[in-house]
């Protein structure tokens, strides 16, 4: 199964860096997400996950390091998380880490949003400050 790598950029739109690795089972999405066509960008990621869950059926570690995402992106993030939940419900092993910069102040709303993702999806998301993240993270 092919990997996905998208190099992020911060131009007039903000494209996140996406690194989905079928061999290691580690999928990472980082940077900022504010896109011209949000659903068009995330569709290949949904398809990849679908293939991973139905064909490879391995453990997946999903790492989210997004510092900004607009509301359209948040919808797609929830959709990905719901896919992970469905995989977990069918017996798949799922680890989800959400990283945030604990040096930043005034980020209560951001952390609320992650809590809301947890409530919306019923997933157990590990909320990890960068300062406590392992080197490998």
């Amino acid at each position, binding site marked *: 199964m092919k990997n996905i790598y998208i190099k992020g950029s911060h131009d007039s739109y903000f494209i996140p860096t996406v690194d989905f690795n079928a061999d290691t089972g580690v999928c990472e999405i980082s940077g900022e997400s504010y896109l011209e066509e949000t659903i068009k960008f995330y569709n290949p990621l949904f398809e990849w996950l679908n293939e991973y869950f139905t064909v490879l059926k391995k453990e997946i570690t999903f790492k989210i390091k997004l510092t900004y995402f607009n*509301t359209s992106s948040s919808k797609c993030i929830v959709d990905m998380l719901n896919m992970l939940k469905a995989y977990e419900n069918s017996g798949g092993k799922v680890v989800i880490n959400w990283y945030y910069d604990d040096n930043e102040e005034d*980020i209560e709303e951001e952390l609320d949003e992650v809590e809301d993702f947890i409530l919306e999806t019923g997933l157990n998301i590990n909320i990890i400050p960068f300062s406590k993240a392992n080197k490998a993270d």
Partner: protein
Amino acid sequence: MISIDKLEILNELDVSNTQLLSTYEGMFDNEMIGFFSRRMVNFSYDSPGLQKKLIVSFIELAQNVGYYSADKQNDFNGKIVGVGALLLGLRDSNVFFCIANKVLNSELNVLQRKCELINSLNREQLRELKRNNRNLIPGTNGGAHIGLIMIALITNKPLHIQYFKVDDTMSYFIIYVELSKKRAATDNE
């Protein structure tokens, strides 16, 4: 009829302590959004978190204009972009902006109900509304139906809104946002 003839939304702005930085009327396309976001980035904030709240609010509301304004233009790629108006300024240590776009009078009631609902909820209830709405089928342009809810959550205040009549078919929907560049005074001050 809810739309009114006097622009009252800015009444609280005392001329002596406000500084007008910019106004704009035209397409709310990506270039315009980028231009004004960059301007807002350059103010001095106590923390990047405060800067982010302002930019996030602005991008969300500006995108709303681009998608939902009743006044539309084509741009380069044949894409259709909404037209609206923006006012940006400083008031003491706060930044404020006002965004207006036309809406059909026939759609005013739905919009007003939505805003009244948002303004009637406390924070926990707002978050629940956001969670529920996000589960709905995406709107056109992938909209998540939660932009206005996010503004209420980010500003931690009711939405400050006015409807301003243009003619028998249209009114302006105007939203005012004011955010501080400074952290709130703490107990030990």
